[in-house]
């Protein structure tokens, strides 16, 4: 895959091969010569949509390579007015499921499909149209739902206890584009680098999950980048599952701008008592 519309685009955001087999890195290419290092293939797992926010104000068009699931994030960022469609040239790149050193990525095991939501050009082949999913996306959520409230509480307390508050999940998240994050306020006690109370880490992730609810496309980057292997995507998927069940099927990033379940009020909306009914407490 080699395409550089010199003149049409001023730069390319893609991937660069690493030193080993699978340590590919998102990279910025600013000249034709640099494009020698460009790669696309099995280890292009990162979602490049978030980097586009940085490029949005750059002069000239930016060419970005997006996998099917990444196009959801990109579309969602346009809905949120974080990106201007005209500033980008989008290559939809076919995806056979991305890998890392330990095999198929978690997010690809529950692949949401191979449709490109937004693109200028698509480069793919028959093989990359074949489904990748090998398990039900909501399997993990359902398993947790079937546990008791105490078991779920213990599960999350244990998982979140490993959090080192590095903010990788937030920094990679295409739904987290606040110019200044509320958790970055040094005057507040929540910016602490040591868990004065372990409750803090718990709160951080729960607030973040609430904040991206209805906007999260389930791109899975939060869990992929977590150095402490916390299954953060399960929090987001629980919201997605609940929203689907309560307000009808919805996928963030699909379709033209519309009113989303979280920003639309209807008389049939769930009442707060639903929490107790569904909580399995």
């Amino acid at each position, binding site marked *: 895959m080699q395409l550089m519309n010199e003149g049409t685009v001023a730069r390319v955001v893609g991937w660069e091969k*690493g030193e080993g087999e699978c340590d590919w890195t998102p990279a910025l290419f600013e000249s034709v010569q640099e494009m020698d290092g460009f790669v696309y293939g099995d280890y292009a797992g990162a979602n490049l949509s978030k980097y586009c926010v940085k490029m949005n104000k750059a002069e000239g068009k930016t060419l970005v390579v997006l996998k099917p699931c990444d196009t959801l994030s990109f579309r969602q960022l346009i809905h949120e007015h974080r990106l201007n469609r005209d500033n980008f040239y989008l290559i939809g790149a076919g995806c056979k499921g991305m890998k890392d050193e330990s095999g198929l990525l978690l997010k690809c095991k529950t692949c949401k499909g191979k449709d490109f939501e937004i693109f200028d050009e698509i480069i793919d082949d028959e093989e990359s149209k074949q489904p990748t999913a090998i398990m039900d996306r909501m399997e993990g959520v359902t398993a947790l739902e079937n546990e008791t409230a105490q078991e779920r509480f213990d599960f999350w307390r244990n998982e979140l206890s490993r959090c*080192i508050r590095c903010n*990788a999940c937030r*920094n*990679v998240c295409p739904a987290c584009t606040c110019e200044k994050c509320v958790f970055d306020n040094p005057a507040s006690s929540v910016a602490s*680098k040591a868990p*004065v109370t372990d409750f803090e880490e718990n709160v951080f992730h729960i607030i973040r999950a609430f904040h991206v609810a209805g906007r999260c496309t389930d791109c899975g980057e939060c869990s992929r980048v977590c*150095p402490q292997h916390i299954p953060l995507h399960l929090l987001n998927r629980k919201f997605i599952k609940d929203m689907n069940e309560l307000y009808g099927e919805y996928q963030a990033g699909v379709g033209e701008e519309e009113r989303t379940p979280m920003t639309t009020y209807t008389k049939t909306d769930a009442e707060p008592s639903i929490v107790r009914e569904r909580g399995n407490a």
Partner: protein
Amino acid sequence: MTYQFPKANAEAIVKGISRAVYAPVEKDGLTSFERYEAGMNLALDTIPTDKSMKDVFFPQWENLMHFRVEGKTIELTEEERCHQDFVIFGARACDIQAVKVLDKVFLADPVDSYYASRREHCTLVALACDKPEDSCFCKNFGADPASPDADVTLYPVGDDYYVQTNTEKGEALVKEWNLDKAEEGPVEWLKGEIGKKYEELPFAHLNLKGFDGEHLKEKFDSPKWKKLSMACLGCGSCTFACPTCQCYDIRDYDTGNGVQRYRCWDSCMYSDFTLMAAGTPRPHQLERYRQRFMHKLVYFPANNDGMYSCVGCGRCIKKCPMHLHIVKVIKALGEEESK
């Protein structure tokens, strides 16, 4: 002296040590050096552990002192320093080299007594690396995976550990284990094997020419930092995993009945690291990313007779969610030199 015991006895030996033992243990798929307690899952074969043993000497957070504040008066109580002997069991050559780097910082005048007291009370039991990973490149930075510099060294050969004592402290510890004496042959054989295996690693020999104080500004001003740092999330995983990253923050915490002043790890990758009321000299991730690698490869050797503050443990290679790591930096910036 050389001794020998079956690998299967390792857990019993760790349990039998009369002092506190810190050893690599596995929990939820992550390995770290923890105070060993019965029932923990020893991970003596892991190279390298997810978290290094720097925690033992320089904990991720530790109390420094306590203040009682009443009206206009302040009363200060210092936290007790470490005063009991302990053992680290299963240290690797890279992590031991990392402690030498940490010594340069914490034991330089004025000595950090919190760190120094832990160093004094430690007996180090090392493990030779019979199965180095592809991400290992420690020999570039002065560590030898075949002969880690410790009080006691364990050499895994077949189903046994061969034990060599290198210091009196080490000899005293091993005496407690009541081991059978052994021949040195298998140890020498393993050393040779490790040497051969290391040579086959992809990053066995890196070109470090030009990474010194002489080329400080040239490296700093390199246009390549922009591209190198572009994908960085600023998460600081590399700094937390790194056995030599020792930047710290000092903070106060209101306990409700006084103020606890504690020290915790900090990261030059964070935007608030150098933030002052008047702004920050490193406003972008580029500057922060550059700081980290310049410190390891240029600033530190410039201040410490050429000693690098990278030890080639490869944790940044394994940990960075965007696969940015020091080998990429060395190769990218080192190439300039040869042109």
